[in-house]
């Protein structure tokens, strides 16, 4: 137990909890200033999401997309690549999966399977260009992926408006996906669950993708921490020169880090079009890319921590929604809190400063003693040559 308390992991968790506490406190202080009934508002914020079933459903749905995005970013950040193209990959994944389900003439199960595969494949390929440019030309992957994000969004808009949207559409959206092609609810259609199922389905639309996502989390974890590929990724991320020295093919690893992350980003897109919105429409992905990055950072690039971080943020988001609907505080407050938490968590000097000062002091004392000893020997050194 003592080792655990001293361990780095524990310190990390402590740091995150501390940052959260500070963030939430600051949020409360802000609420005091702007609200007529701050206590009620903050109560709604903190407890709202679990007060009603449909709210729980909303919470889960939002978090699920974020989990997938967080996983995608984990993969690429583990290799220390500043690739932020997950938004573009997700958007194209959403497009492709929606199109397959709406238009490809195959029986439903095959259609949906193909949709999944196509989304992951497209997202994988979309990262190839910035990946190769970074690996072989050392082109700044932040800028190239940023550019291609916009290209992806524009491509999405173009294809939606010109090929997918029905003629007499009233909004920038495709037709809704018909019932028989929709993903089933996450509660299985078994006799024992009938009541629960009815209850849930009336209030929420959480789909069976939950299981896919759980599988994805486990898959990402194994990929990153149990396979040789994951080892290569993390070693390149830890010290590129060491990786090369040890024999790892660094260029190939860099390319794969970005493309493989596409698998998860593509799935996130599938979740958007086949689970949350049940169609392909403009604005599905707004801002989610950066949220995913936020979550991966909070989770310390560990796939197992991603669901926790995503559920946490999802919870805060849902709570903010409730707060807005029932009080006079707007929900953007939660993003402000998230931003502060992010800053505090990544300020490496914050917690360690105290720790380091203590250990630095100890080291200095040691050295002073060493120098005293050396000087003593010098003065009495008979070996002058």
């Amino acid at each position: 137990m003592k080792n655990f308390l001293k361990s780095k992991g524990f310190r990390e968790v402590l740091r995150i909890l501390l940052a959260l506490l500070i963030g939430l406190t600051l949020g409360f202080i802000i609420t005091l200033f702007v609200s007529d009934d701050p206590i009620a508002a903050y109560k709604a914020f903190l407890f709202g999401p679990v007060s009603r079933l449909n709210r729980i459903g909303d919470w889960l749905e939002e978090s699920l997309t974020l989990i997938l995005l967080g996983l995608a970013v984990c993969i690429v950040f583990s290799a220390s690549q500043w690739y932020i193209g997950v938004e573009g990959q997700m958007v194209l994944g959403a497009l492709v999966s929606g199109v397959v389900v709406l238009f490809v003439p195959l029986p439903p199960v095959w259609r949906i399977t193909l949709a999944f595969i196509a989304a992951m494949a497209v997202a994988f390929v979309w990262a190839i260009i910035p990946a190769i440019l970074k690996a072989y030309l050392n082109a700044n992957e932040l800028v190239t992926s940023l550019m291609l994000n916009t290209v992806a969004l524009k491509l999405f808009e173009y294809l939606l408006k010109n090929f997918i949207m029905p003629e007499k559409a009233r909004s920038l959206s495709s037709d809704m996906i018909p019932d028989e092609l929709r993903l089933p609810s996450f509660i299985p259609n078994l006799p024992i669950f009938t009541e629960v199922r009815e209850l849930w389905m009336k209030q929420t639309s959480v789909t069976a993708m939950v299981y896919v996502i759980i599988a994805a989390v486990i898959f990402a974890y194994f990929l990153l921490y149990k396979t040789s590929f994951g080892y290569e990724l993390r070693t390149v991320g830890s010290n590129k020169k060491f990786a090369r020295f040890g024999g790892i093919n660094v260029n190939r690893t860099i390319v794969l880090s970005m493309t493989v992350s596409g698998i998860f980003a593509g799935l996130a897109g599938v979740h958007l079009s086949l689970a949350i919105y049940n169609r392909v429409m403009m604005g599905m992905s707004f801002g989610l890319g950066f949220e995913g990055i936020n979550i991966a950072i909070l989770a310390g690039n560990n796939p197992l921590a991603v669901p926790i971080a995503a559920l946490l943020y999802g919870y805060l988001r849902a709570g903010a929604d409730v707060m807005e609907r029932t009080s006079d505080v707007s929900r953007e407050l939660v993003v402000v809190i998230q931003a502060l938490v992010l800053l505090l968590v990544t300020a490496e000097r914050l917690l360690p400063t105290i720790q380091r000062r203590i250990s630095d002091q100890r080291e200095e004392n040691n050295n002073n003693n060493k120098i005293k000893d050396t000087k003593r020997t010098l003065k009495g050194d008979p070996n002058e040559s």
Partner: protein
Amino acid sequence: MKPLIDLKNIVKVYDNGVVANDGVNFSVNKGEIHALVGENGAGKSTLMKILYGMEKPTEGEIWVNSDQKHFNSSIDAIAATIGMVHQNFMLVPSFTVAENVVLGDEPLKNGLINKEEVLKITKDLSDQFGLFVQPDAIVDSINVGMRQRVEILKTLYRKAEILILDEPTAVLTPQETDDLFKAIRILVKQGKTVIFITHKLREVKEISDRVTVMRRGKMIGTVDTKDVTREQMANMMVGREVFLDINKPKIKRGEKRMSVKNLSYVSETGRAILRNVNFNLFSGEILGIAGVEGNGQTELIEVITGLKPAAGGTVLVGEKDVVNSTPREVRMRKVAHIPEDRLTNGVAVRSTIEENLIVDRYFQKPYKNGVFINYNVVKKESEALIKKFGILTPTGKLPVSSLSGGNMQKVIVAREFSSDPDVLIAAQPTRGIDVGATEFVREQLIQIRNEGTAILLVSADLGEVMSLSDRIVTLYEGEITGVFPDASKIDEKELGLYMLGIKKQSAGEMEKYL
């Protein structure tokens, strides 16, 4: 006449206990060219860093022009008219020559930089001191010789009267060296004083007025250059080495394991760093490379291990030529490598000890399990290695950053040795680690040599090279200058002459022993 620079009784002890300067007295007269020589670890760089304000002496006094000085940083030294040109140039690549010369103190006109004045200043300084540069050339595009002249002009712009040059010819071609010397003579004729650190004794004879020799942190002596020969200087530089108490049984060497033929390497700045290097490594034998750092040892190892491309030549391991292969291909031929720079190449400090131990083998049995790595095996093997090599850590799952330098080196040694290599390249294997770890590493080297590995040892510690090696070659300016088939029978002074390029064996002489 009082000396211009007078360093009195300088002592410098570093935090880790290393005594870099031990009661050094060093003085320089105005207008002279003063060479400061010594081999690796002699303390000459440290002494000059103290003079330039980059380090503070633990004890001792600095006197410049009969004033005692206390330097808190280089800015103070610059104010005292001392300038230094380091081995790594401090230039901004996209700026022009002239812009770099005046950087930090640009002349102004009406609040804006006076570009004409910048050019004029540069050109005037250049003409005055015979340091040819193209004032409006972009630094990124000019050659190393000109870059060095820019650095010198920088010091002159800041009114340096005393110039310290740290191994200035290390990066120059012979032609560029001649140009530099011409420039130094002009500088001195115009009243400047030049101190230059070097180990190239031919140059000391060619250009300096006086020379100071240091060895192991102590000042050995200062003499007029005309009164001393290169052999005498070499004798002063290479002292009575501390021979290690190592139990090295005499064994018969076995088959040839690696054959290096006509290996050449050209740096990114155009210098020929390795020239037609030839040698062989044999099973059960340690071949030591003796030489002052900076004569091509680093590059030789990088080329052999696949980290850098060769300009020509072959490196045969078994029957295969591994020159210009990838590091993995070289490792697959059972060539292991203890790198010179352990923090950069040898370990990944943020990864765990276990992860550091498997980088060369994670894709092979028994670690490999389909696409997975069997971390139970990793744990077991790592524990065994940690125990066998005495790595001080409660668990292999801690990051390497939690280890001391000595223990980090043990991790590297554990990994490289346990791969059961046919050939081991060991570069500075005991640099910067504590006494216990040092002893340990040396013992291990002897052990695997006894077990049949062919070892190439490169070390700046001459005593270590002479004690551990069975056979020694000397490397000077990228060429093998001598081979000594029986290391136990060499006199270090003799070795010093070959290390410093004063003596050289002919190709014919060396052939059968390489």
